[in-house]
C-alpha cells in the first residue's frame, strides 16, 4: 500500500528538514545537498515529502482563513450598505423631503385663508385652510427634527438651527396676518393693504430664507446617502475581487497538494481533497454571485428607488409652491408680475420646455404627447422620463402625471386670462374650483408615481436583506468542512512516515 520511494534516511541535522517540520519529526528523503546553492532558496522550498505536504497544508489553512475573511468582510459591507440606504439614513432623508413640502403648503394655505375671507361657497373655506396650515406646521416640525438629527457637519447643524429660528418668525407674521384679516371680514379677494403687507413679509421670509435652507438641508442629507452608497458598493465590488482571488489561490493550493500527493504516492486521486476543492470552488462561485447580486440590489435601491423618490418629492414640493403662486397672484395684484414669473420658473423646473412666458409655455406643453416620443423635455419630469423603467406601470403613471399637469396648466391660462380681462372674481372661482381639483388630481398622480418607486425601493431592500441571509452560519460550516476534508485527505499520508 505504501509507496515510499526514498527511505527516510536523511540526517536529522538537515537544516531544510528541521526548518520545514516541527522539531522531533524525522525528515524523510532529503537527498544530500549540493554545495553552492544559495541558502535562502533552501529555506523557502521544502525539500522533503512530509515538509512539502505540511507546507501545502499550512498554506491551505491560511488561504482558507483569508478566503472566508474576505467573504465575511464583503458580506458585512453589503449589509451595511443595505442597512444605511434601506433602513436608516435612506428613509430618513426621504422623510426630510417632506419638510420642503410642508413649508410650501403652510404658505399656500395661509394665502388661501387670506384670499377666501368669509366666503363659504368656494372649494375651500377659511377654517379648512387654517386647519391644513396647522397640520402642515406640525409635519414641518417633525421633519425638521429628523433633518437636524441627520446633520453630520457643523454647517448643516447651523442650517437646521437657522431654519427653526426663521420658522418661529414666520409663524408670528402668519398669526398677525390671520388675526388682522379676521377683523376686516372681507369677501373672497385681496384683503386690506395692511394684511397684504404682513403676508408679503411672511411669504418673502418663506421664499428667501426658509425654503432655500430646507431644500439645501435635504440636499446635504442626500449627500450622506450617496457617499455611503458609493463607499459600500465599491467596497462590495472590491470584496468580490478578493473573494475570487483568495478562492482561486485556495483552489490552486488544493490542486497543488493533490498533484504533489499523486506524484509522490502514485495515487490518481485523493477523494477528500478533491471534495474540498469542489467545495471551495462552489463557495467562491456562490459568494461571487451573491455579492454581485447584493451590489445590484444596492444600485437598484439607490438609483431606481431613492434617487427617484427624492427627485419626485422635490418636483411635488415645487409644483405645490407654484400652485400657491397662483393664489398669491390673485391675492396681491401689486406683485402679480413677479408671481406670474415665479410660477413660470417653478413650472419649468417641474417640466422644462423652452418658453419665455406662460402663454408660450402652455402652448408648447399642450403639444407634448403623453405617450412616448414627441419633443424631449427636461426638468424633474424629464429626468424621470429618461430613467430606465423602475417597475411595472411606471410609464403609464408618468403619462398620467403629464396629462394632469397639462390640465392644471390649462386652468392656469384661464385664470390669468380672466384676471387680465378684469374678471378677478370669476378667476378666484376657477382657482378654488376646477383648478384646485385639477391640481389635486395632478398631485395624486405624482404621489402614485412616487409610490411605484417606493415599491421598487422596498423590493430592492428586501432582496438585499434576503440575499445574504444565513451566510454568517454557512461560512463557518464550509470552513470546518474543508478543514475536516483536508485532515482526512492528508493525515493518512503523513502517517505513512511514522
Amino acid at each position, binding site marked *: 500500500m505504501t509507496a515510499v520511494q526514498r527511505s527516510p534516511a536523511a540526517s536529522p541535522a538537515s537544516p531544510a528538514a528541521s526548518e520545514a517540520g516541527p522539531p522531533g519529526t524525522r525528515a524523510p528523503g532529503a537527498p544530500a545537498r549540493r554545495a553552492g546553492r544559495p541558502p535562502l532558496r533552501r529555506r523557502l522550498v521544502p525539500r522533503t515529502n512530509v515538509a512539502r505536504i505540511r507546507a501545502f497544508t499550512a498554506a491551505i489553512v491560511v488561504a482558507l482563513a483569508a478566503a472566508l475573511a474576505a467573504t465575511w468582510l464583503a458580506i458585512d459591507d453589503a449589509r451595511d450598505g443595505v442597512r444605511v440606504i434601506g433602513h436608516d439614513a435612506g428613509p430618513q432623508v426621504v422623510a426630510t423631503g417632506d419638510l420642503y413640502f410642508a413649508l410650501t403648503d403652510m404658505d399656500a394655505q395661509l394665502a388661501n385663508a387670506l384670499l377666501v375671507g368669509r366666503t363659504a361657497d368656494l372649494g375651500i373655506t377659511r377654517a379648512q385652510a387654517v386647519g391644513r396650515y396647522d397640520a402642515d406646521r406640525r409635519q414641518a416640525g417633525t421633519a425638521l427634527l429628523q433633518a437636524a438629527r441627520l446633520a453630520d457637519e457643523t*454647517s448643516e447643524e447651523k442650517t437646521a438651527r437657522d431654519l427653526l429660528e426663521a420658522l418661529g418668525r414666520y409663524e408670528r407674521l402668519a398669526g398677525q396676518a390671520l388675526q388682522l384679516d379676521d377683523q376686516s371680514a372681507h369677501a373672497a379677494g385681496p384683503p386690506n393693504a395692511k394684511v397684504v403687507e404682513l403676508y408679503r413679509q411672511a411669504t418673502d421670509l418663506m421664499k*428667501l430664507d426658509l*425654503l432655500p435652507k430646507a431644500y439645501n438641508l435635504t*440636499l446635504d442629507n442626500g449627500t450622506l446617502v450617496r457617499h455611503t452608497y458609493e463607499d459600500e458598493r465599491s467596497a462590495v465590488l*472590491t470584496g468580490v475581487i478578493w473573494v475570487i482571488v483568495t478562492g482561486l489561490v485556495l483552489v*490552486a493550493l488544493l490542486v497543488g497538494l493533490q498533484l504533489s500527493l499523486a506524484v509522490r504516492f502514485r495515487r490518481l486521486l485523493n477523494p477528500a481533497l478533491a471534495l474540498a476543492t469542489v467545495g471551495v470552488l462552489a463557495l467562491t462561485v456562490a459568494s461571487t454571485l451573491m455579492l454581485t447580486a447584493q451590489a445590484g440590489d444596492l444600485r437598484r435601491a439607490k438609483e431606481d428607488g431613492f434617487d427617484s423618490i427624492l427627485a419626485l418629492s422635490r418636483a411635488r414640493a415645487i409644483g405645490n409652491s407654484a400652485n400657491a403662486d397662483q393664489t398669491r397672484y390673485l391675492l396681491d395684484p401689486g406683485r402679480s*408680475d413677479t408671481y406670474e414669473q*415665479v410660477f413660470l*420658473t417653478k413650472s419649468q*423646473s417641474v417640466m422644462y420646455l423652452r418658453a419665455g412666458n406662460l402663454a408660450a409655455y402652455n402652448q408648447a406643453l399642450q403639444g407634448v404627447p403623453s405617450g412616448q416620443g414627441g419633443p424631449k423635455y427636461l426638468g424633474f419630469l424629464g429626468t424621470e422620463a429618461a430613467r430606465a423603467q423602475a417597475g411595472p406601470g411606471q410609464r403609464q403613471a408618468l403619462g398620467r402625471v403629464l396629462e394632469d399637469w397639462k390640465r392644471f396648466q390649462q386652468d392656469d391660462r384661464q385664470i390669468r386670462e380672466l384676471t387680465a380681462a378684469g374678471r378677478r372674481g370669476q378667476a378666484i372661482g376657477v382657482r378654488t374650483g376646477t383648478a384646485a381639483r385639477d391640481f389635486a388630481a395632478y398631485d395624486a398622480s405624482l404621489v402614485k408615481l412616487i409610490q411605484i418607486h417606493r415599491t421598487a425601493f422596498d423590493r430592492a431592500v428586501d432582496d438585499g436583506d434576503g440575499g445574504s441571509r444565513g451566510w454568517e452560519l454557512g461560512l463557518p460550516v464550509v470552513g470546518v468542512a474543508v478543514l475536516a476534508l483536508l485532515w482526512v485527505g492528508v493525515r493518512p499520508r503523513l502517517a505513512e512516515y511514522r
Partner: protein
Amino acid sequence: MRARRTTAALAALAAAALGAAGCGVTGAEDDSILGKDTLTIGVSPDQPGLGQLTGSTREGFDIDVAREVAKRLGVDASSLRFKNVTSASREEMLERGEVDLVVATYSITPERKTRVAFAGPYYVAHQDILVRGETTDIRNVRNLAGKRLCEVPGSVSFPRVTKEKGIAAVSAQASGYSDCLAKLQAGQLDAVSTDDLILAGLAAQALKSGGRPLKIVNSPFTDEPYGIGVRKDDTDGCEAVNKAITTMYQDGTAPKLLNKWFRLSRLDVVTTVPQFEGCD
C-alpha cells in the same frame, strides 16, 4: 507539467483580478477639483462690479466669490489662476478641463445642466431696470411701454421685455451695456434693463467716475440663478463648492461682499443663502 501550467494560469488570473480591484477603488475620483493643489477659475474680464480685468488686476463680486470658494476648498491664493471666459466658451472650456470652475454671471438653465454641473446658485439675480436719478414714472416693467429702452444685439434682455412680457418699449440700440449706460446718462435713452447685479455694477462705476446719479428701480421680474460651473461628473467637487457657499453665507462673508460691490447703487440685495440646484 500540466499542473504547473494550470498554476501559472491561475496566478495570472489572480494578478489580473487584483489589478482590476486596484482600478475599481480609485478611478472616478481622479479628476475632481478636490485634492487639486492649484485651481484655474474662469471669469468674465469685462463686467464692472462682477468680473473686470484692468491691467493685470481683476476685481468684482464674482472674483471675490471665486477667491473665497478656492480658499474654502483649501487652495491658497498663490495657487489660484484666473482665465477669461465668454458666454459662448464656458461649457467647452469646462469640458476640456481648461478651467476647473466658472464664476462668471453664469445663469443655471436646464439646457446648460445637460453639459455641466452647477454648484450654487451663490446669488439669484433678477432682471431689473436702471434709470436716471430723477426719473419717477418708471416704477416697474410695465411702465417701460413707450419708453426708450436700451437694446444690445445678441442680449436676451430686450426681447424679454418686448416679446415675452409683451410691453411695447421703444428700441434704442447700443453696442454693449457700458454704451447703454453712457447713452442713459447722456439722455439718449430712458432705461436700461438687464440682470440687477450687472446694472448695479455699471451704476457704481458711473457714480465713481462722477457721472449723473442713476438708480435701480428694484422691481425684479425674472430669476437668474448665478451658479458656479463644475465639470459634469464631479459630484463631490460640486458638493464641496456648495458647502463653501453655505459657509460663506453663514459666517457673513457673502453679505459683506454683496454690500461691498452693490450697496453704492442702492440695490436691494438678498443676504440669505439661495436655494441650491443640487449636484446630481
